[in-house]
């Protein structure tokens, strides 16, 4: 992360902030999209994340923490958005299947398994798979203990493995 860009962004430079955002935009959008399963909602949540982050960036002390920091804002928003889906089916909707070139048996099975995980475990797996983040980085993003993330990640993969075997 370019510290100069961060300093400019903290001074209210929207272009500098946009360049910082650009470095993580695909990961932010993909995480939002796969967590929500709805293209428009994912776009809305990412845009809200960006505007909130720009408004709050003066509170970011370590420029190197930008990626984890903005993901943290995103994850909080995603959690609340998903909560508003209670009672609605968001699994495997058309947006996701069309983005992935159509459903395959393997794809359906693995995504179903992921969707059946507890919310926190799903977040951890998403960040691991999509972002390639380490457990300590995920821990910082989710406000959890790194050891808890490690153990939950192991347990989540065991659950997915068991579900794939059952299906």
């Amino acid at each position, binding site marked *: 992360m370019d510290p100069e860009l961060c300093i400019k962004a903290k001074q209210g430079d929207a272009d500098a902030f*946009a360049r910082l955002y650009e470095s993580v935009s695909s990961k932010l959008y993909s995480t939002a999209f796969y967590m929500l399963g709805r293209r428009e909602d994912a776009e809305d949540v990412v845009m809200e994340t960006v505007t909130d982050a720009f408004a709050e960036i003066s509170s970011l002390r370590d420029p190197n923490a930008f990626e984890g920091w903005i993901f943290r804002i995103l994850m909080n*928003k995603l959690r609340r958005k998903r909560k508003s889906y209670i009672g609605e089916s968001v699994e495997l909707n058309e947006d996701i299947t069309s983005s992935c070139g159509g459903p395959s048996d393997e794809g359906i099975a693995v995504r179903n398994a992921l969707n059946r995980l507890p919310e926190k475990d799903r977040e951890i797996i998403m960040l691991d798979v999509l972002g390639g983040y380490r457990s300590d980085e995920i821990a910082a993003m989710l406000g959890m203990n790194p050891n808890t993330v490690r153990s939950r990640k192991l347990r989540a993969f065991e659950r997915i493995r068991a579900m794939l*075997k059952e299906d």
Partner: protein
Amino acid sequence: MAQTRELTTEEIQERLRREMPVLDVPETLSAENVAAVLKQRKNSKKTPIYVWVRSAVAAAAVLAVGFGAIRAAGMLGGKKGESYSDQFFPEESGGSYYYADDGETDGYSSAEIPSVANDAAKEVHSEETRVMVLDPGEEMVITTEVPFEGTDIRSDVSYGNGTGSTDDICKVRLIEGDRGQAEIELNAVSAGSISVELIRNGETQYHIDITVAE
């Protein structure tokens, strides 16, 4: 589809990556568009307070902010042990979005929120985010409609400091209210942000982001 053998963790990761590739952002989220949106917000007409009311229900919440502010200023004064009820702000109401936009302190900031309400009751509600801004040393009790019985509280350091204990930013305690509902006692310590959740039967019942101003 049943597996003939157990997949390794790496194979599961690989399969998930294949099924969930990193996507290109749509045009609306391109860096150029984002920069334009942020500039537009910054350069929007200087209005002391811009209030967007999304629904008629949210309009009621707006009035309640004013009422709550007067009530908090006149009767409570932000002192320890006294309560500021949020019963007027049901999360499912559709919400309202306040932000002060003066071209310099875009977004909700501790400097601008007092002009929305006053120093004693500084709350910002959006449809997704409930934010409370406190000054260091400020104490407050939030009354919720969540039953106290069986409720746990969880607080995490949110963005701002990034690491450390929530107690360094704002001490949070769950107490039982007069009507058996959960109350959250806040004691702001120093600048930073934390998120607080009330959890019941494994589900988050109440969520609030608290920022302690510089």
